[in-house]
């Protein structure tokens, strides 16, 4: 093996060790951004290839997952967002308005149990969020980035991430309670 071959091999080995452990999180975000299995695969592959080509610019010891998600979001915004079929999104303001009454009407068991919402319902409620809000939830809750890392990926202030996340979670709660109600769930009668 020649010296350049050995160097390339070493770079690839270091990259795979550093970046591939985050594939699950990266794909989880990609899939929920695109809502298309093929586009998500392409987006993830493109993210890893671009990261590999600029791996020299990655500082060891910093958050590799945040770096990968920043690249992924940048590619998504520049390449996939425009051609993607826009899913129907909900009015976040309307759902926020319903949040206080929905919380009040939910019984204690309802609030503490996670069994009333299926994964499919959570996915559907996420998909219906406007993209800016969904991106904040995906980066923080699926990608498990800090607010600061998510803000860097989204190129917006930290306060914006915090606000979008708060509003998105309230909207998700209302949407998911609606699903549960339509499925026949009734909140337990509250004791005085």
């Amino acid at each position: 093996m020649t010296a350049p071959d050995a160097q390339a091999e070493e770079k690839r080995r270091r990259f795979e060790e550093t970046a591939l452990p985050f594939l699950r999180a990266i794909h989880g975000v990609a899939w929920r951004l695109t809502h298309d299995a093929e586009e998500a695969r392409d987006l993830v592959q493109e993210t890893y290839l671009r990261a590999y080509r600029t791996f020299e610019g990655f500082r060891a010891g910093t958050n590799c997952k945040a770096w990968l998600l920043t690249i992924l979001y940048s590619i998504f915004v520049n390449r996939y967002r425009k051609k993607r079929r826009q899913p129907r999104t909900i009015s976040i303001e309307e759902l926020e308005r319903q949040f206080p009454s929905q919380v009040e009407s939910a019984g204690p068991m309802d609030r503490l149990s996670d069994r009333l919402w299926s994964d499919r319902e959570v996915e559907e409620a996420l998909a219906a969020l406007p993209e800016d809000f969904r991106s904040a939830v995906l980066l923080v809750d699926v990608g498990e980035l800090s607010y600061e890392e998510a803000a860097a990926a989204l190129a917006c202030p930290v306060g914006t991430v915090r606000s979008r996340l708060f509003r998105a979670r309230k909207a998700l709660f209302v949407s998911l309670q609606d699903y549960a109600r339509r499925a026949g769930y009734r909140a337990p009668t509250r004791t005085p």
Partner: protein
Amino acid sequence: MNDVRNHLDVEIQDLLDGRLNAAELRRVELHLADCERCRAVRDALGRVRRSVRGLPPAAGLDVLKREIVERLEGEPPRIRRLRRFGVAALLAAAAILAVVLLLASRRKDLPAAAASDFDQYTSRAFSLELATGHPELLEGYFSQRGVKFPTRVFDLSMMGYRLIGGRVHRLAGRTSALFVYRGPNDRTLLCEMFEGLASELPAGAERRVHNGIPFFLYRRSGRTEVFWPEGRILCVLVSDMNAEEVVQLAFAKAVKP
């Protein structure tokens, strides 16, 4: 639920996400101990948070991982492979080739270098030195930083492109004034100006002429690059947006020297 005190708001989320300091945490916990309404909000938001975080991974990750590894193995190494010459022969060949490579690199590297700059910027491999939306401030910055040629930072706001900022950069071994715009749907548009001639551009460009100005269009790997000369300066716009949009922006902003 008829509590009329000042309820907590986004602090409840800060609690769930572990973003409160000790004093804030104590204050929030004291409030929660006495406020049923805020406890209900905490439980509701906490349940949403757990539900999203607990979503299962999509199927097929093993296949995807294998595909990524295969594509990485297909990536050419950046360092050129050396032939098995002896050291003396290698040095002699290097000396002869040095001048040729120097000249050739100036011809063939410009589109590849500009595309690489775009990729590196969008993957945050480098950052902008001055964040500003004011073209005149950026032009002043380039001048202060010793850029020896006049720069012309475009105002593209009428076309929906907001100037983000810029940096003094190196493009294929020469000083470049690099600046970036954010367009509709958060699309990135990168512009560089540097000393050079259109004759240095490699073959393979689609050539167009608009208002008497020649434009050289390269489309590679989903990116569009449009070069044009302004006297001794070469300008280039790079983006992965629709190619014609990039071309029209170049047409709109190019001037005859």
